[in-house]
Each structure stands twice: as structure tokens, then as C-alpha cells.
């Protein structure tokens, strides 16, 4: 070291060194961005109050740019694709499942059957739904086996090679038929009527005796599928600490974690669910579908596994809206005031309970309609049938009964020659009214709403043919 070298010289040399260094260093290649990046944060102190402000959806910009990532848009290194084999038969005993041909196919990395699932049942109320059927099939959309392969097409091809032998059993499709004593049992060892609710208020039998007229009718609604634009999708991946991460279109994460913990016999803190933007839920993505299956396939293969429902799966194997068969008997006085109402609801509960219990409860309470009825009896039944399971869908039992009690009201008005709006004014809830279950209602604005709506719609000016 030469102590006599001037610092000046050293600094210059350092500059040159830095320049040389920079020249040698390759510039970082920025990621290509094809859209302007702006942050849309409002100015400070203008963020509240919210009432009266124009609210822009925070995801609107990303949607328009096509930048929103749904589950199927995500991809991980080494990711496999899983597909599920569907039963295609409504009620059968599974005699045998032969996976040997499928497992031999190049690109097929793992298969799964029901017996490999630690606890093969789940459900929000009753845990009556298997992830993959083991010995019995309860509806045509049931899963009987699953496959993970390197491409989607290979997984589908493998499904074709899986041989399942069925012993067909007698299915029942009609809920009224299923209620009968001698109907085939959907789930062995339990009545097809798996839930019932009763609401009693006053004394309907006595009250009917005092009625001016009694009207009876039966209303029924159909099964409806949510058809979210985005099919159900999930990706499962494990880390070295035995923790499973699931990217999922699932709507209820905590419930999902609890269900998966139970099914896989894992502590709940080992389960991480990342629910990204969902492409439409409407109630259909409120419970787990294939997440535990993908988790087990991922565990077997040591690779991330993605499973996406086909549109056929969406119709056959995802929950639907309950068809209802509703018997209404209503007694009225000569002014059209309801003196008694008796309702029987039969809810087509599909192959599994899912959210039926909750739906049935809600439907029962709402089946009387928003009307003052002192004497009310509601009997509601949820019945198993060998069809796609019925679960949560926007309204949760309310739309079905609304169709029934409002059509019924129109029929009564028509027969009595009373204006349909007027008959509702005479019966509708007001402040302090008692609900079907005895709750005293406050902040009741039914009458005001009817009046306002009538004015805005021009009810008085309409052409009405009696």
C-alpha cells in the first residue's frame, strides 16, 4: 500500500471503477406493462362520510382491463390438472372401481377414491355428503373417482379408462312420492323426510269455521341452477410444514377451513384458504366441493393440483335452488281480511342436506307472507330425492313462497272482486304487527311502500280487466 497516493487520485479512480461497474452491469428489464398504472386513492379528509358520495367499485378498473385474476387464471410450476368421474346413475351400489388402466396412462400422476379420504363426509347441517362416493351413489352427479394428470385432456382421457361396476337400485325423484312410507330410501337407515318445521299460532281449525270463504291451491316451483359465469375452481398445494394452501372460488372461507380440517383430519391452523375475486357465487359457492380431493391428490403427487368444474359439472354436481311444492289454504272474511292460513311446504331436498335446513326454516317463517294472520299453521318438510343436491341460492327459500302467497292473494282478490292492491293494504303488516313466530315488528313501512309504489307505477291509471 502506498500511503503517499493522494485521496484525490483515489476518488477519481473510484468514479472510474463505478462507471466501469455500471457499464458491465446489465440493465434490469422491466416487466412489460400494457396499461397505465394509477392509484385511485381519494384525497385525505375527503374519504368520509360515505353517504351521498358516488362510490366506484374498487375492482371495476381491473375488470375492464382484464387484469382480474380468477382461480383458473392462476398457474403454478409443476401444476397438475384434476378431473372428477361422475356416476351418471341416480341410485346404485358401487360394486367395484378399477383404476388400473387409468393409472398406467403416461401423464396420469395420481388417482383417488372415496376410501382414501380420512373422513368422507361433510355438510353445513348434517354431514351426509361424501366427497367421493365409496359404496353408494345418491345422484347422477356424484363423484366416484378423481384423477390428476399433467394436462386437462389427459385427465379426461383417464376418466374414460376408469371402470366402475354399478348395481342399479331404485331411485325416487318426486318429493311427494319420497314422503310415502313405502318409498325407496334415498339414504339407507333414515327416513326420506330429513327435516321438518312447524309453526303454530292461534287456532286455525276454529278460525276456518268463521271464514266467509276458504281458498285452497297448490303452487310449485322448479329447480334452478346459479350458472355463475365462472365455474367452481380450486388449486391445492402443500408446503414442507404440512400446511395446505388452497386458492379457491369458495365463498365461505372459515366454514371451508372447518370442513376441510374435519375431512382431512388436520388441525384447522394447517389449512390456509386464499379466496380471490369470484366470478359469481349467488350461494352456489358457499361450501366445499372438491377442495379436499385436490388436497389429497396434491399430497400424493407432491405437486400443486388445479381442479375446475366443466359447465356440465356445474349443472349436475353443484348445488341448485330447492323446488318447492306448496299447499295453501286461506280463510278470509268478506272484506278479504285473512282470518286463518294453513300452509304445507314440501321442499325437494335433493341427494344431500347442504343448506336445506336453513332454507326450510326461512321459507316456513316467510310462507305466511307479510300479512297479519292471527291463526296460522305451517308444516314444512325437507325430503331426500335422488337428484342434484339443493342448497343456498339468492333468497334462500323466500322466492318460492313469495310466488305462492302472492299468486294466492291475487286469486282471492279476483274471486272477491277486490282490487289486488287494496286487499294487500287491508292485510299488510303495520307498526307493532306480530310476525308468524310471534316477534313484534318495528320500523314497518309496508303500507307506505305500497302507497308510494302505487303512485309511481300509476296503479290507478292502469287498464284492469276483472
Amino acid at each position: 500500500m502506498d500511503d503517499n497516493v493522494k485521496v484525490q487520485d483515489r476518488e477519481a479512480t473510484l468514479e472510474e471503477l463505478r462507471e466501469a461497474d455500471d457499464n458491465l452491469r446489465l440493465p434490469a428489464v422491466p416487466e412489460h406493462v400494457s396499461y397505465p398504472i394509477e392509484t385511485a386513492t381519494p384525497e385525505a379528509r375527503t374519504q368520509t362520510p360515505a353517504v351521498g358520495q358516488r362510490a366506484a367499485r374498487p375492482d371495476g378498473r381491473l375488470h375492464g382491463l382484464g387484469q382480474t385474476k380468477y382461480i383458473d387464471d392462476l398457474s403454478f410450476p409443476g401444476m397438475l390438472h384434476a378431473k372428477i368421474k361422475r356416476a351418471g346413475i341416480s341410485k346404485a351400489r358401487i360394486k367395484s372401481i378399477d383404476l388400473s388402466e387409468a393409472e398406467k396412462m403416461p401423464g396420469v400422476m395420481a388417482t383417488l377414491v372415496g376410501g382414501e379420504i380420512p373422513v368422507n363426509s361433510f355438510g353445513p347441517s348434517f354431514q351426509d355428503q361424501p366427497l367421493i362416493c365409496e359404496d353408494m351413489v345418491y345422484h347422477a352427479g356424484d363423484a366416484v373417482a378423481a384423477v390428476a394428470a399433467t394436462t386437462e385432456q389427459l385427465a379426461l382421457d383417464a376418466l374414460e379408462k376408469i371402470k366402475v361396476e354399478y348395481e342399479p337400485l331404485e331411485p325416487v325423484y318426486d318429493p311427494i312420492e319420497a314422503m310415502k312410507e313405502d318409498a325407496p330410501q334415498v339414504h339407507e337407515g333414515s327416513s326420506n323426510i330429513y327435516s321438518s318445521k312447524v309453526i303454530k299460532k292461534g287456532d286455525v281449525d276454529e278460525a276456518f269455521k268463521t271464514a266467509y270463504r276458504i281458498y285452497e291451491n297448490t303452487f310449485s316451483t322448479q329447480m334452478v341452477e346459479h350458472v355463475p359465469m365462472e365455474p367452481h375452481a380450486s388449486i391445492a398445494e402443500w408446503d414442507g410444514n404440512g400446511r395446505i394452501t388452497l386458492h379457491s372460488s369458495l365463498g365461505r372461507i372459515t366454514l371451508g377451513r372447518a370442513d376441510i380440517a374435519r375431512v382431512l383430519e388436520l388441525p384447522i391452523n394447517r389449512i390456509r384458504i386464499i379466496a380471490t375475486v369470484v366470478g359469481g357465487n349467488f350461494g352456489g359457492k358457499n361450501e366445499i366441493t372438491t377442495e379436499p380431493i385436490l388436497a389429497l391428490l396434491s399430497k400424493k403427487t407432491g405437486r400443486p393440483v388445479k381442479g375446475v368444474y366443466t359447465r356440465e359439472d356445474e349443472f349436475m354436481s353443484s348445488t341448485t335452488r330447492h323446488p318447492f311444492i306448496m299447499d295453501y289454504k286461506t280463510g278470509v272474511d268478506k272484506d278479504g281480511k285473512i282470518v286463518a292460513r294453513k300452509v304445507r311446504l314440501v321442499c325437494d331436498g335433493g341427494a344431500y342436506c347442504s343448506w336445506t335446513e336453513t332454507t326450510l326454516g326461512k321459507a316456513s317463517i316467510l310462507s305466511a307472507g307479510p300479512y297479519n294472520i292471527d291463526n296460522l299453521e305451517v308444516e314444512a318438510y325437507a325430503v331426500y330425492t335422488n337428484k342434484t343436491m339443493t342448497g343456498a341460492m339468492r333468497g334462500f327459500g323466500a322466492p318460492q313462497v313469495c310466488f305462492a302467497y302472492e299468486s294466492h292473494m291475487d286469486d282471492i282478490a279476483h274471486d272477491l272482486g277486490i282490487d289486488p292492491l287494496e286487499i294487500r293494504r287491508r292485510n299488510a303488516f303495520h307498526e307493532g304487527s306480530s310476525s308468524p313466530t310471534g316477534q313484534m315488528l318495528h320500523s314497518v313501512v309496508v303500507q307506505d311502500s305500497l302507497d308510494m309504489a302505487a303512485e309511481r307505477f300509476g296503479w290507478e291509471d292502469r287498464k284492469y280487466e276483472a
Partner: protein
Amino acid sequence: MDVTVTVNGETKTASVPPETTLLKMLREELNLTGAKLGCDVGDCGACTVIVDGIAINACLMLAGQAEGKTIQTIEGMASLDSYHPLQRNFEELGALQCGFCGPGMILSAKQLLDDNPDPSKEEIQDALSGNLCRCTGYTKIVEAVADAAREMRGDKQAA
């Protein structure tokens, strides 16, 4: 087989088996996940892209049929300086909710406005009849397209 296309102004080549749809090629080979898989049979329109100026269902076109063609996807609508008026009006009006139908809707609307700068409400509805939406009921989408059309004709101040 090798398929070469011009996507959003850039030439790209992908090596795909013949049984690959254009949709799959865009999403999996070219990482353009804006076009969505909703039904895979050409009914829902979530996979709509513009090929040689014409809106089509990418799930119905084989990759080989797209050879040499010019494709525009949702990712090519905005420029570095600004959003396309359709994207801006969709955002301002809150025309999309879950957003899944969005890319397809916007591209169908784009083809409409490119061919017909002053469409009536019925013409907008007809142009979007191949794009299904389960969230919104379509009202705001149609309004947003009409607003965008006005803006593009210069009848409205850009936001």
C-alpha cells in the same frame, strides 16, 4: 404444430397440438388470461376475442385456423397512456360486478362501435346477445356502451 399470430400488435409463436383451441392457446401458451372459459361450447361469450376485426368465440376456433391472423384481446385495449373509452365507461358506471363476462362484453362492444359508431339501444342489445352476464341484468352494460359510443363520437367530455 407451430402457430404464429399477431396478438395486440406483437407477433407471437406457440407450439401446440392441433386439437388446441385458440382460447387455450391464448390463456395457457401466451399467458393472456383475459379471455375466459365459461362454457367451452360457444354459448356464453366469455371467450370473445377479435380476430381480423371480427368478434368470435375463441373456444370454437382451432389454433391452426388462427395462423397468420391478427388478434386483439382485452389486454390490448388500453394503451400506456389511457384506457379505452369502453373500459373507462364500464368502470365509471359500475357496469361489471364479478367481472368474469367483462372482457368478452367489452370486445363485442368494441366490434360494434368500430362498425357502427352510433348504435341504438336495440342494436347494442343485439350486438351483446352472445355475451351472457349473471350478475348485472345488462342495464348498466348497455348504458356504458352507449356512453362510450358518445364519447368516441366526441359528444361527451372524456373523464
